[in-house]
Every structure is written in structure tokens, then in C-alpha cells.
């Protein structure tokens, strides 16, 4: 296996929808072991970037490597948490069942999840504080609880590189805490986590690496270096809600409301 310092390496990625580029000539290198936030305004292509990297939508051009390998050879090392509203939560299944789906890819044909799979799923639910609701039908869970079930499913995948699409979107405080703790735990194990994020206020607190995206990559690197007022302005144009407090910018810029 060729050793690569990068968990994710994207070269010249372009994605177009009906002749309009949604992502334009993306070059991105994400070192192994970082917690990276992808931020950018609505329509910047954050979700598209993840989906194109994972081969879920066709790309017009570009090459994506995971730990130096093409997707096909790296699948077993990749975990994925889709957007919560991408599926029908009325589906007849339980939280435990969903968590076990994280093992389906590795089980192989004709094999059913056994007791060990059940234990792994329960342990993952425990880790996100959902073990007591394991037998609950997923439609009866709150939005935050559903999000935690999705995270448990990703944990069961036991991956080295995780992609999470807006896990913090519209969740309660308990869930937000649970996710933050989980990110910390994954980091400690040396995993790489890439998170689509929408809240500028918490970027510096949650992530040590950040990519600012608006169709093109505006900046990417250590949060302390690239998460600057100037880069945020360039990413969002005039559409910033409120700049995060504590950025070394002028006070009036910090209070700026679009």
C-alpha cells in the first residue's frame, strides 16, 4: 500500500449541473488525523464536494484519492453520515437496526448480522447516548436522536476517514454535545473527520483544519491560519450573518450583520 500523508487528495475536480459548474477545479489536500470543517454559503457546493468525492454524483473531471488509493480500494476505510433529511424516517425499522447497517458492506453476500454485529451496534449507540432507545422505531425519535443514530451507524463502520454532512443542522444541545465529544474521541484515535458545517461561530472551537468553499476552494489549511476575516469575506461575499467573535478583525466587522 503506497503510504500517503493525505487522508483525502482531490485534483482538478469539476462538477457541473446542466452546464453550470457547481464545483470548479477543486484541488484539496487533507492531512491524516485532522478534524476538518467545510464551510461556505448555501449553494457553495459543500455537499456536492463530499458526494462527488464518494462517487455518488458524476464528476465532469478530476481525480480523488483516499490514503493514496482510488475509492474502490479504500471503501472499507471510509465512513459516511449523510444529511439527515436525505432519507425517509418513516421507514419501518429500529435504531439498533439502522446502526447495524454500518456493517452490511463488510459482511459480504448472503451473510446476516449476527450477535457480534448486534453488540457492535449497541456499543456504538451507547457511545452517542442512544442505547436506551435502541428498540425504538426511528420515526418516533427526535431530530437530534435520529442524527445520533446516523452517527452510531458510521461508528459501526469503524472507518479511518469519516465524511459527515451537516451533522449539527437543527439538533438539540444534548446532541450537539454528543457530536462534539464524538469528534474529539475520533480525533484521539487518529481518525480523520471531514464535516460539512454551517455555523461560523463554532468553527474555531470544533475544527483544527478548515476548508472555505464557494464553488472554488477559497482557502484550506489549519484553522488558526486560514480562518481569517478576509477569507470568510471572500467566501461569503456580502452574505455573512455574523462573523465569529474573537477573530482578529475590527469590532464593527465582528458585529456585522448582512
Amino acid at each position: 500500500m503506497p503510504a500517503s500523508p493525505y487522508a483525502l487528495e482531490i485534483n482538478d475536480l469539476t462538477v457541473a449541473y446542466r452546464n453550470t459548474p457547481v464545483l470548479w477545479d477543486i484541488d484539496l489536500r487533507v492531512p491524516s488525523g485532522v478534524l476538518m470543517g467545510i464551510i461556505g454559503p448555501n449553494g457553495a457546493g459543500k455537499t456536492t464536494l463530499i458526494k462527488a468525492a464518494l462517487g455518488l454524483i458524476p464528476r465532469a473531471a478530476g481525480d480523488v484519492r483516499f490514503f493514496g488509493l482510488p475509492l474502490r480500494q479504500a471503501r472499507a476505510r471510509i465512513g459516511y453520515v449523510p444529511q439527515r433529511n436525505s432519507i425517509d424516517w418513516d421507514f419501518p425499522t429500529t435504531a439498533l437496526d439502522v446502526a447495524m447497517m454500518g456493517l452490511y458492506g463488510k459482511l459480504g453476500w448472503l451473510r446476516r448480522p449476527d450477535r457480534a454485529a448486534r453488540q457492535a451496534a449497541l456499543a456504538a449507540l451507547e457511545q452517542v447516548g442512544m442505547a436506551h432507545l435502541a428498540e425504538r422505531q426511528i420515526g418516533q425519535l427526535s431530530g437530534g436522536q435520529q442524527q445520533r443514530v446516523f452517527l452510531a451507524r458510521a461508528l459501526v463502520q469503524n472507518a479511518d476517514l469519516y465524511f459527515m454532512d451537516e451533522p449539527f443542522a437543527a439538533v438539540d444541545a444534548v446532541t450537539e454535545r454528543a457530536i462534539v465529544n464524538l469528534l474529539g474521541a475520533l480525533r484521539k484515535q487518529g481518525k480523520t473527520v471531514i464535516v460539512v458545517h454551517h455555523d461560523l461561530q463554532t468553527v474555531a472551537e470544533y475544527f483544527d483544519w478548515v476548508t472555505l468553499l464557494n464553488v472554488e476552494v477559497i482557502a484550506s489549511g489549519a484553522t488558526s491560519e486560514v480562518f481569517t476575516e478576509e477569507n470568510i469575506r471572500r467566501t461569503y461575499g456580502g452574505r455573512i450573518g455574523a462573523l465569529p467573535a474573537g477573530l482578529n478583525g475590527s469590532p464593527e466587522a465582528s458585529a456585522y450583520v448582512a
Partner: protein
Amino acid sequence: MSPEDRRVWRFIGAVALCMALSVPLSMALGVQYDYTLTHVALGGALLGALCGMAGTFAVLRGQSLIGDTLSHAALPGVALAFLLFGREPLALLLGAAATGGLGILLVNWLSSTTRLKQDAAMGIVLAAFFAIGVALLSYIQGRADARQAGLDKFIFGQAAAIIARDVVILGAACLLIGALLLAFWKEFKLLTFDPDFARVNGLPTGWLNGLLSTLIVIVCVIGLQLAGVILMVGLLIAPAVAARQWTRRLEQMIVLAMLFGAFSGGSGAVLSALERGLPTGPLMIAVACGLVLVALLFAPQRGVLWQLRQRRRLRGEV
């Protein structure tokens, strides 16, 4: 297994028992299960069970109306096969599958390459194919051909046409499709619940999708002669919709949908065979929709009455 799961499984067992008891009950009421009626009832029940299996996935994948497009689009295929090969059962089936499948491909092509939305694409394809089918059928009707009788039964379905060979075909289809669903159970489940996640995990979603769609096509085509092209979709989705209301797991839903389907198909076929000229499709669908109505009203948690009671209790507490 959680207590709630156990309760649902017990309920499913009770439903199975009731439906099995309906056979001796109908005998006591004077229904004579002679050679013909036995075949008719068996065929209807097997078809219903098939529909329960395929319908569970069609409903959960949001593809309920695909079955409608498919069965309407199958009509010209039936007519063309008759014109070319005469009343050859296998030829009629293949003809139905050919134009039905073509209709589905056309819907997919229209909604992916033009600005047409999927519902509009289905409406247009369904109407176009059905119109051609009806025109061909009228043309065949007008010909002086003695063997033409019965082709128009495809529109509303005709159980009396069931013979031993049909029962064998339906039984074989049940075994085959049941075995495929068992073999690829976890793959089909994940594909239906979260296709993106399935793909990231390396499941070959393309051909799994194709396989599942093919199963739905096969069930619809086999059912055409009994349920009729117009109401086939009802038998496909009604048992699954009714079953969904009572259950909280896919495993429970598909078993209950098969039971509901078998009961609807069997009793509909028996009812239609009691009197000459009664169409099978509408009677099967009437029974199935009755089950849906009962489920929508009385199912715990999801049922209308349950929710009314819940609301009243809440108001009482306030």
C-alpha cells in the same frame, strides 16, 4: 426481541389464523371448493402473496405508481403478442413484459433527459401505451377469429381463466422471488432505506436496483391476467400499505403484506368465480382496500382513531 416486536408478531400470527379459518368458514356458508374454484382461490392467493412481497418494496421506494405505468403499458404488448402468436400464454406474458418494461425505460429516459417531472412522464407514457393497447384490442375484437375470446379480460382481470398450469407458474414465482428476497435481504433493505449509504459501502447499487425493479415487473406481468391492467397497481400496493400501518419492522411488514395480499387475492378470486361474469380484479382490490381502510382507522399509533384518542387524552390532561 423487544416486547413491542413480540406483540406485533403475535398479531401477525392471529391474522394468519383468521385468514386460514376463512376457508372452512366459507365452506360452512355454502361455497363449494370444486376443482375449478380450488385452482382459482389458490392462484388468487399466490398472486396476492407475490404482490405483498413486491409491493412492500415498491411502496417504501416511493415507486407505487411505477406499477400503474407498467401494467397499463403492458396492454399493447399483450395485443401484439396475440396478433403475432395467437393465444399462447407464454407469448402473451413476454409481450406484456416487453412493452411494460419499455414503458418504464421511457419514463426514466423522459424524466432524466427532459425537463419533464416523473409524475408527468408516467402520466404521458401510461396514457400513450394504454391508448395503443385499447385500439389494438378493439381491432382484434373486430376480426373474425374464433380464438380471440378472452383477450379483453386483460382489462379488468378474469380469475375463471386460471388453470392448473397458472397455479404452478404462480407458485414457482412465489418460491423464486421469495428466495431472492431472502438471499439479498440486507442489501435490498439498505438500498431501499438509504441508497447513498449503500453505495458508499460498496454495494453494487446499480444491479441491485435493476434486480428489484425486475422483480416488480415480473409480479405485475404475471398478475395482469387475474387482476387486470387497470387495477393491478391496487393489488400491488394496497396489501403493503395496510401492512405498514400495523408494523414497525420491514420483516414484519413484508410477512403481513403477504398475508393481506393472499387473503385479498384468494377471497376476491373466489367471490368473482361464484357468479358468472364477475370481474376478478375489482373484487380483489375491493377486499385489499377494505383492509387498508381498517388499518388506517384502527392500527395502534398510526391509526386515525388511536390518534384521536391520544389527542383527547392530552386535552384531558391540560
